[in-house]
């Protein structure tokens, strides 16, 4: 069995997974069309689809998508960079760990969306406050994951590298980070999900642009079909982001394995 | 008996023909991967043969049942139940009334010499004690056939020997037919009235030997030359298969 053939088989199996979703969507449309699901409760799939098509065709969805992705992305990347740095520092230097661990413990139980109004009072109603909350929210899982990953590096690896004269700095890049990568990757994946949640919450609470804002305002005026259209769009977007991340990660790991 | 699909299929067992009389003790030995456990699971009804059938008293076996009890090497005890609750489990499923149940449990606790441990949890017991409970809980359901999948394989040599003697004693006094899978040749010959040697790839029966002599409680059978001869024969037979599968 060649590798290519196996690859196709896997794709086929993945495509098959969408079947139950399609079944549910079909049931939805059927229920709406036959009146089992009254329009007053929920618009039909076709109506939502039409609304979505309209939003995409008119391009209206684009600026909002960009606004949301921009905010979430900025906060996310800040969190990744600082989170990994802090996590590694905590793992390698005991004093840093002692200093920061209790503080992290304080931040952890605070539901980050609850900090949104605080950040808005502090940093203004604009994008910056939202980016900051998202960054803070994403920071915690990344720091924890990096810390755990960097801490559990096999000491044998470190000793043997040191014995071969690797400087402490190269040690970090060549040994610690790669071995902590799986856990960091898992933490980052969690952070993606958190970023989306905090993003939408912040846009619900206050904003003038973005997908959350669209959902909230359409809901407010009773345009349920448009609102659900954006919800669906958001669901697909979230799913796609997660999948892209996983696929990208696999590619990066493969390249990494080759390069070494 | 085949697994898998298309070109990945694996024939685990081929042309197995075996009949077993009541109250026999059949030891099944062979190299790893010869399908001896698979055979056991087929008899137990946990797997379905792709060709052929298993018959119990002229009726085909279609699934697991109380008439065929099974003892595994590990994890056969429910960790959230005490020793007595584990033994009572099958009885509760059968709807046996409380008094009766307690009596049967007490009997079986005594049978495996675990008095005083009734209220302990599996994690508090040693490996040997856990296997005793496993045997007790299976026997409590009064199966006709006792299937044992390398039950003493995870125990140390001393405990193994003690439990072998106990198992022989229990089998002697009872009426169960035992199918005992092991990779330990000495164990197979010490316990079995008939010894089935299996070959691997594909799994099949190589030969079936009958132990011509009896072993009683407390016998020092190692000293018996008939035992040594039989054991050597079986060992050589198995070794042949191990060597063959390595080439």
């Amino acid at each position: 069995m060649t590798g290519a053939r196996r690859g196709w088989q896997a794709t086929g199996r993945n495509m098959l997974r969408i079947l139950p979703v399609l079944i549910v969507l079909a049931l939805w449309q059927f229920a709406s069309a036959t009146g089992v699901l009254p329009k007053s409760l929920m618009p039909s799939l076709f109506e939502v689809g039409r609304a979505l098509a309209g939003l995409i065709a008119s391009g209206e969805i684009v600026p909002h998508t960009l606004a949301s992705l921009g905010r979430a992305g900025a906060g996310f990347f800040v969190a990744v960079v600082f989170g990994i740095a802090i996590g590694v520092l905590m793992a390698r230097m005991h004093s840093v760990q002692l200093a920061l661990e209790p503080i992290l413990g304080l931040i952890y139980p605070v539901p980050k969306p609850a900090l949104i109004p605080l950040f808005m009072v502090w940093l203004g109603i604009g994008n910056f406050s939202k980016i900051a909350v998202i960054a803070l929210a994403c920071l915690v899982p990344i720091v924890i994951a990096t810390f755990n990953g960097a801490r559990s590096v096999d000491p044998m690896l470190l000793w043997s590298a040191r014995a071969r004269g690797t400087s402490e700095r190269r040690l970090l890049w060549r040994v610690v980070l790669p071995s902590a990568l799986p856990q960091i990757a898992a933490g980052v994946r969690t952070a993606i999900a958190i970023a989306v949640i905090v993003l939408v919450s912040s846009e619900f609470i206050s904003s003038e642009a973005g997908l959350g804002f669209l959902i909230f305002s359409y809901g407010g005026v009773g345009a349920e079909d448009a609102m659900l259209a954006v919800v669906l769009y958001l669901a697909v977007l979230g799913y796609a982001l997660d999948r892209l991340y996983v696929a990208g990660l696999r590619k990066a790991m493969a390249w990494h394995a080759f390069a070494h | 008996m085949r697994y898998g699909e298309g070109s990945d299929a694996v024939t685990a067992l081929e042309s197995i023909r075996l009949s077993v009389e009541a109250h026999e003790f059949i030891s099944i030995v062979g190299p790893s991967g010869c399908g001896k456990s698979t055979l056991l699971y087929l008899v137990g009804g946990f797997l379905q043969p792709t060709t052929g059938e298993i018959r119990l008293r002229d009726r085909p076996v279609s699934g697991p049942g109380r008439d065929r009890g099974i003892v595994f090497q590990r994890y056969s005890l429910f960790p959230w139940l005490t020793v007595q609750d584990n033994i009572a489990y099958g009885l509760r499923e059968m709807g046996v009334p409380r008094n009766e149940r307690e009596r049967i449990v007490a009997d079986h606790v005594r049978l495996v010499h675990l008095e005083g441990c009734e209220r302990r949890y599996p994690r508090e017991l040693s490996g040997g004690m856990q296997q005793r409970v496993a045997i007790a809980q299976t026997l409590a359901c009064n199966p006709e056939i006792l299937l044992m999948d390398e039950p003493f394989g995870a125990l140390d040599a001393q405990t193994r020997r003690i439990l072998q003697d106990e198992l022989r004693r229990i089998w002697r006094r009872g009426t169960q037919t035992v199918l005992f899978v092991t990779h330990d040749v000495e164990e197979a010959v010490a316990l079995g009235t008939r010894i089935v040697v299996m070959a691997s790839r594909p799994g099949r029966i190589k030969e079936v030997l009958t132990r011509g002599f009896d072993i009683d409680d407390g016998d020092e059978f190692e000293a018996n030359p008939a035992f040594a001869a039989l054991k050597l024969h079986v060992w050589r037979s198995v070794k042949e298969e191990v060597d063959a599968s390595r080439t």
Partner: protein
Amino acid sequence: MRSPTDGHASRMRRLFVRIVPVGTVLIAWELATRLNVVNPYVFPPVSEIVLRWVTLVAGGTMLGPLWDTLWRALLGLGMAIAIGVPLGLVMGRSRAAEWFLEPLFSFAFPLPKIALIPLYVSWFGLFSLSKVMLIFTDCLFPIVLFTYHGARGISPIYTWSAQARGTGPLRMFWRVVLPLSLASIYDGVQVAVVVAVLVAVVTEMVSGGSGLGYMMMRAYRYGDVRTAFATLLTISLIGYVLYRIAQALRERLLFWHVTEA
């Protein structure tokens, strides 16, 4: 080797080490606001926050909203457990159920259920029901997922051993699959507890009515930052306390659990 007298001393030292960083931050905060380095209208002094918190709790003003948030979170969580655990167990043992349900949960997972607040409000109104339903929806996912994985990972030896002792398929769920999955289910519950509090607060912040989330938003709207922070403190405390309770209960419930090596 640790001597008997070490225990007390090292415990004190550990406590000390944990308090110092937190204490430093708090003291810095207090000083920074008092000296106007940080705007006290944004970050009131810690002492005043604590004072306000004590006043609100002792005076009973905080208790009503606290109870509202709490019962909503717990009710939603309870419903999620009642429905999610059986669902996860069935998914774990039935190929058909798994085939149908797993993709549904996987696809729906990345969507922040919070985006459904307007939809739920239109269905269930502005008050508690919509909030509880959203909490239920959000908690369902971790519970189903964890239960599903727990049920899937059961060694067939347990089920075979049970089958050979006369256990029918229905009883199998109750007597074998459920206890064996319990550790995993509990992990899911621990995650869900945190989610429940979070969603309760966010729904209150967005759709108002009552509860700690609403109380906090209201405080900000009136410029009452001290109350806002005090509410934030309570919110964080609930999450923390519930998680710790869940953790402590775990030891008692799962005392028999041994992770299979």
